[in-house]
C-alpha cells in the first residue's frame, strides 16, 4: 500500500514546479498553464486525504470538484484577458506590458 506521505510529497513537488513556472515564465499563457499545474497538485492532495483519512461527507472529493469548476472559470476568464492584451499590446510577454509602471 502506498503511504499517504508519498502522495503528499508528489503534490508538494508538483506545486513547487507550478509555482516556479508561474513566477518565472514570460508568456502569459504559460503562466496560466503553470497555475493549472498548481491546481492539479492541490486536487491530488485533497483526494489523497479523502482516501486515507475517514471523512463523513467526502469533503475531499467535493472540494476537488469545486476546485475543478473554479479552475475552468478562471482559465476561461484568464484567456479572455490574454486575448484582450494581445489585441491591445500586440505582445503576450508579461514583462513588456508595463504601461502602468512608474
Amino acid at each position, binding site marked *: 500500500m*502506498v*503511504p*499517504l*506521505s*508519498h*502522495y*503528499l*510529497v*508528489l*503534490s*508538494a*513537488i*508538483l506545486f513547487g*514546479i*507550478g*509555482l*516556479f*513556472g508561474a*513566477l*518565472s*515564465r*514570460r*508568456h502569459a*499563457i*504559460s503562466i*496560466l*498553464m*503553470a497555475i*493549472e*499545474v498548481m491546481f*492539479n497538485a492541490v*486536487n*491530488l492532495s485533497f*483526494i*489523497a486525504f*479523502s482516501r*486515507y*483519512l*475517514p471523512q463523513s*461527507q*467526502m469533503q475531499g*472529493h467535493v472540494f476537488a*470538484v*469545486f476546485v*475543478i*469548476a*473554479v*479552475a*475552468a*472559470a478562471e482559465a*476561461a*476568464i484568464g*484567456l*479572455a*484577458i*490574454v*486575448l*484582450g492584451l494581445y489585441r491591445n499590446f500586440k505582445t*503576450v510577454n508579461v*514583462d513588456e506590458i508595463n504601461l502602468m509602471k512608474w
Partner: protein
Amino acid sequence: MSVEQGLFYFLAAFSVALALIVVLAQNIVRAAVALIFSFCGLAGLYILLDAEFLAAVQVLIYVGGITILLLFAILLTSRIAGKGVRVLNEQKVVSGIVAVVLMVLLGLAATRGFEAPAELPKQPENTPRIGTLLMTTYALPFEAVSILLLAGMVGAIFLARKEEK
C-alpha cells in the same frame, strides 16, 4: 514492490516529468501538449486512489475543456517568434529557490505530520454519494459555483468579443 506501488511511481514520475516540460519548454504548443498528458497522468493517480468519478471529471473538464481553450488561445495569439526568445524572465533564480524551499517544507510537513491509518477506510460508492452530497449538504456552494460559472461565461464572452467599430 506491488503493482499499486509500481503504478504509483510510474504515474508520479510521468506527471512530474511532464510538469517540468510544461514550465521549461521553449515551444509553447509542446508545453500545452505536455500539460494534456500531465493531466492524464493525474487522472491515473486519481483512479489509483479509488476516485473514479473525479478521474473522469478531470479528463472531461481539464483535458476536454481547459486544454482546448488554452490551445485555442495559443493559436489565436501566436506570432512568428524566433528561436532565441527567452522563456524565463529575470526572476528565475529567486523563484527557483522559493519553489525548492516550499517543496522541502511541504515535504517535511507531509512525512512527519500525518498519522495515516494502517488500513484504508472503506470508500462509499463514489458517484451517487457525491451527487447526493452536492444536492443536500453542499447545495449552497453548488449554487454559488453555478453563479460563478455564469459570471465567468458572460465575462469571458464580453472580454473576448470583437470590438465594434
